[in-house]
């Protein structure tokens, strides 16, 4: 609640800045905060990445184990994505099972990775209908500094790129790198004061009525979108965000994720 009151007081200030073409932290409207990625930070995981996006810190861990495929897709591996908004990460979070926000974040990140076909799931089938690899993507938010979705998306694909299939542990042959063939990147925008801003900070995100996420692949195609929040968007705004997101995602991919 106190956070909300602060946000209300801040609204005019940020609004006036935007009219002048500025943001609180000096960024351009289409500029991301600083990003750092460190992989291999969780030694017991098959792959992991610690991502910082401005003040936001997220640790993504990948665990892989053999298991049964879903009956309607017997010949492909399984992806299960989960987000934990642990109480450590924000005074607003409470312990307990994932709620609406956490579920939405997990499902949007999952959508990007699944629909881009970034993981070659056919290669993860061992015995059709009986045995496939199951990939668990667990997104652990350590510090909520805003725009969790983009940080979680970057962290997830970075972690997957560093992941090893643990075949030896289960007596199923030799370890090998996880077959990853695309790099989907989520870019989130808000509409505020008639302008579109990428990578909203915690404060900007709280003021915005709506956040809009676009997930873009290496070839520029789109593999996921989510509008979340009460304020509407126009067709024109949607198309502008799609353009901005494609450009921003390409920069992030080139700088941090391509080897």
């Amino acid at each position: 609640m106190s956070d909300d009151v602060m946000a209300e007081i801040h609204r005019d200030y940020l609004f006036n800045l935007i009219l002048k073409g500025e943001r609180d932290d000096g960024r351009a409207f289409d500029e991301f905060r600083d990003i750092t990625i460190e992989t291999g930070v969780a030694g017991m995981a098959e792959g992991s990445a610690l991502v910082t996006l401005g003040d936001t810190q997220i640790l993504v861990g990948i665990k892989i184990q053999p298991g049964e495929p879903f009956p309607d897709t017997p010949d492909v591996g399984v992806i299960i994505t989960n987000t934990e908004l642990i109480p450590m990460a924000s005074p607003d979070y409470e312990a307990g099972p994932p709620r609406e926000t956490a579920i939405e974040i997990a499902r949007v990140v999952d959508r990007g990775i699944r629909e881009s076909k970034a993981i070659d799931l056919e290669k993860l089938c061992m015995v059709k209908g009986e045995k496939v690899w199951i990939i668990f993507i667990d997104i652990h938010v350590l510090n909520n500094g805003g725009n969790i979705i983009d940080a979680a998306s970057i962290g997830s694909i970075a972690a997957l790129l560093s992941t090893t299939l643990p075949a030896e542990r289960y007596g199923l042959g030799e370890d090998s790198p996880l077959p990853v063939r695309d790099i989907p990147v989520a870019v989130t925008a808000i509409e505020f004061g008639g302008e579109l801003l990428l990578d909203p900070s915690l404060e900007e995100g709280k003021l915005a009525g709506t956040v809009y996420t676009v997930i873009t692949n290496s070839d520029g195609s789109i593999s996921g979108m989510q509008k979340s929040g009460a304020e509407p968007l126009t067709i024109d705004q949607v198309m502008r965000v799609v353009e901005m997101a494609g450009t921003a995602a390409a920069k992030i991919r080139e700088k941090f994720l391509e080897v």
Partner: protein
Amino acid sequence: MSEKPEHFIVDGKRLDGRSVDELRPIKIELSPLDRADGSCYLEWGRNKIMAAVYGPRELHPRHRQNMTKAVVQYRYNMAAFSVDDRIRPGHSRRSIEISKVGRDAFEYVVFTKFFPKTAVDIFIEVLQADAGTRTAGINAASLALADAGIPMRGLVSACAVGKVDGEIVLDLMKEEDNFGEADVPIAMTAGGKITHLQMDGNLTKEEFYEALKLAKIGCDKVYKLQRQALIEKYNGEYAENGEDAMPQARIGDADE
């Protein structure tokens, strides 16, 4: 699950004989439920959806009340028997997400500021599912809100667009949804303000733009049907009560 068809579009016709920009048949029945303040039964192709609205009514627990506006609550639920394999009753991660974005789709149009400390409860039950239940639910909810007399900026109309056989098509049916290349559910006001937008699958920017334009056409068609249903029900009733018939232009039109 059924097998993937070899072709989705043959000679410009889809599996069920529709053209690429054609909606499945929609049937609307207003106020089928007696206890709810407003309700709507909607059939869309083989989808069967019941929507009910209660409120504005006191919101419990009280700490969830908002002193400045009504809280819109939206519950999307699928009946256990609504799909091929029985689904376990109760919330799933999917239904929680759909409920959240469903609420988002209506918070803008409902004049929540008129009713502080209250809740406007929207309940969606999917009785029979055949692709596009979230958009069908939004359309039914929109009418149930109007039926309940909740003040709104205007109706919300929704439809999905997608891609099959490399073509952008309106209103995916089950096979197209399961095996198609993309699915984009969209809801908007009559004035074209987008209140709901999701996408999965794979589209180029150009294809997405085409999809948006087609969605606008689809939502306009849905809007006309929704508006017609309200006029048919309420024009008659007003006239019977000896009141002036509601001017047609006012029903569901005000968007700004």
